[in-house]
């Protein structure tokens, strides 16, 4: 009958899906597999593609040095396509199907939140290279970007002390990173005696493109006779129209400087920087910093990507540091086993590209120098201020009510979420 003829098609497809996926799981382990979980399509591809290339470059370099533990490294690249459930699915694919030893990935907070349960369930290892809102410390994640105390607070200190700013606009995209950062900053500013009237908070949706009214409001807010600055946590795509509008409404950096936490060399490369000269950015790395290590890293990058025009930015440095720390920990532990590597990595130090060292702390965050840079007309940033030495990353902010009692310590407390008041460790998934 015809049914019999048809059935193989359909049944074959369904079981093919099932068995095809299953059979991949059996593979030889003569290489060390490095998973790369960055979006290569969709809205986040703009930022994340570069990080994928950075990991590939590091894998390439490590292999030229002979690999690790006598084995070659092999990168496994997948595309979670800026889709958050897909991030979780791809994380599971990397860990369960491809059996990778470590994953470098994620950019947005929501993507990290989406994969977190998967990494904890399957005991994977994730290096997360982007500055973020803190309020997290997972056993399976190492945060190599900045926590709020390594970016936002020093930047505000600089504005307050060096530029004598008295009035503040906290402008951000409406999601968790700007919300947290602004909450921390608001608490911090009020503690420093800034009146509520002198703080304006504004949130806009992702990809907001019509900034006329908001910039006009900022201009009015800033013309009240007190020195005003904008602290911008505006994300990605919305920055270009924002800065264009600033320039066109002739808000210059001397009048109302904008200090951004999400605008770096790469974002500036997509902008006509002429009118932006003097606006600020706070990061833990700038491409313009003149050190031999930085020069070498940039040269490597240019050689790898075969384009001398490409920029190097903070999350890339965080990826490089994360990779180097992991490689060092693997050599120290003499295995790629997640638990042993996690134990071995704490306390390890690798040099920053800008001088000093990055040390992995017991709370899975790094020590980092903080730089404030002014935008130059060529899209690079000139360091105008920097912290003395490195600032240790704080997973739980001291300025927020809910989190100031919480500590993360994976050495003595063995907990990422320890409440010092109730003496309890909560929110752990194992």
């Amino acid at each position, binding site marked *: 009958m*015809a*049914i019999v003829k*048809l*059935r193989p*098609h*359909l*049944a074959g*497809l*369904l*079981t093919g*899906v*099932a*068995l095809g*996926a*299953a*059979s991949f*799981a059996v593979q030889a382990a003569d290489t060390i597999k490095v998973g790369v979980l960055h979006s*290569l*399509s969709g809205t986040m591809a703009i930022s994340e593609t570069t990080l994928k290339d950075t990991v590939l470059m590091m894998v390439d370099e490590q292999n030229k040095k002979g690999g690790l533990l006598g084995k070659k490294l092999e990168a496994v*690249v*997948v*595309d*979670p*396509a800026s889709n*958050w*459930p897909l991030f*979780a*699915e*791809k994380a*599971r*694919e990397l860990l*369960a*199907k491809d059996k990778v030893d470590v994953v470098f990935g994620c950019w*947005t*907070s*929501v993507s990290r*939140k*989406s994969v*977190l*349960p*998967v990494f904890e369930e399957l005991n994977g290892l994730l290096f997360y290279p982007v500055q973020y809102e803190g*309020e997290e410390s997972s056993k399976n994640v190492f945060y190599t970007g900045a926590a709020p105390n390594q970016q936002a607070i020093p930047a505000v200190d600089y504005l307050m002390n060096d530029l004598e700013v008295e009035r503040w606009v906290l402008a951000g995209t*409406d*999601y*968790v990173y700007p*919300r*947290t950062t602004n909450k921390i900053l608001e608490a911090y500013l009020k503690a420093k005696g800034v009146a509520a009237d002198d703080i304006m908070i504004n*949130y806009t*949706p*992702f990809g907001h493109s019509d900034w006329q009214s908001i910039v006009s409001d900022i201009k009015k807010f800033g013309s009240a006779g007190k020195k005003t600055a904008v602290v911008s946590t505006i994300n990605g795509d919305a920055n270009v129209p924002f800065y264009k509008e600033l320039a066109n409404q002739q808000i210059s950096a001397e009048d109302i400087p904008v200090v951004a936490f999400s605008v770096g060399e790469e974002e500036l490369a997509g902008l006509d920087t002429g009118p932006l000269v003097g606006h600020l950015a706070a990061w833990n790395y700038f491409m313009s910093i003149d050190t031999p290590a930085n020069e070498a890293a940039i040269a490597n990058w240019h050689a790898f990507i075969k384009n001398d025009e490409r920029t190097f930015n903070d999350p890339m440095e965080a990826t490089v540091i994360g990779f180097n720390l992991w490689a060092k920990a693997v050599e120290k532990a003499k295995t790629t086993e997640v638990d042993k590597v996690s134990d071995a990595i704490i306390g390890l130090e690798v040099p920053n590209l800008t001088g000093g060292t990055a040390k992995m702390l017991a709370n899975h965050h790094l020590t980092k120098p903080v730089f404030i840079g002014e935008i130059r007309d060529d899209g690079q940033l000139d360091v105008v201020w920097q912290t003395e030495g490195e600032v240790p990353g704080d997973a739980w902010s001291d300025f*927020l*009510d*809910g989190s100031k009692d*919480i500590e993360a310590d994976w050495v003595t407390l063995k907990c990422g979420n320890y*409440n010092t008041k*109730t003496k*309890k460790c*909560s*929110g752990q*998934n194992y």
Partner: protein
Amino acid sequence: MHTPLLKTLLTERGSQVFLGVLIVTAILVPLLNLAVPADSALHVSTYTVTLLGKYLCYALLAIAVDLVWGYCGILSLGHTAFFALGGYAMGMYLMRQIGTRGVYGDPVLPDFMVFLNWSELPWYWHGFDMFWFAMLMVVLAPGALAYVFGWFAFRSRVTGVYLSIITQALTFALLLAFFRNEMGFGGNNGLTDFKDLLGFDLQADATRIGLFLATAFALGGGYVACRAIAASRAGRVIRAIRDAEGRARFIGYRVESYKLWLWTFSAVLAGIAGALYVPQVGIINPGEFAPINAIEIVIWVAVGGRGTLYGAVLGALVVNYAKTWFTGAFPEVWLYALGALFVLVTLFLPQGIVGLLARARKTA
């Protein structure tokens, strides 16, 4: 009612194959996952089970869209709204189940509320700690929205592209609204970090299998229900409306109420699909409302073959499997392949894959 339905189900080849395969899969996959040792070649990994569960949710969603599009000519570009609402209802239940296990250890407030300094639970979060209430909401929230929306739209005789575009506006407005942190649904991060469902650990293999079976059951049930509607007298009227709405109205049928009930039922199906989807993927976020996703659902249906229901299922499976495979195998170029697939199917397979299979059978 029963006799024609049973007859249809038993005689229609597509239905036979679909239900057959569904039952076989529902029996085999749990067996191969739980009973076969992990190192065996026949073992189905938990990863695959979850993946299949997700596909089945999509398939149910595709059936919901096919029911209104294929049978009644209402092209919805807003079914993601119902899917996501169902998902959020389930997500809210799962959030409340976390209890004191959240990072801040608050017994009532979910983490993101503690974090935004909310002092008490907003009124619309009450009741979601009870499973039955949440399940009621899974059905009611999308159902009520669809009913109200449809009541206005169909009564005003908004049809064709106008209807499609305002369904798109609907889901887009909800997308923007849910992105707002003030709404109390977790903003862009959405709801995540779920722990357990009805006391079962969501990370346990057995729970996953249970969810998978529940999804398979819902899909089968949804399919049979849609078939029943299509085979009934009402189903014939609905097809008449699709083919000539004016004529159906002049004959004396109350076109609006037929459309409205079908539309609401379809939205409820989409909501159930969303509710089953969330615990399996572990996150619900406003991104699920994206209009672009709604277009994708329509494409699944078109790829499979509209107006057949099993075609919608097939389309959802094929496109999503292709997506999973392409994003893993050719991360750099997969959009070319996916795009080309859509173009080629619409150009050369107007009846979708089902049509192709039917043609192949005829010539064979």
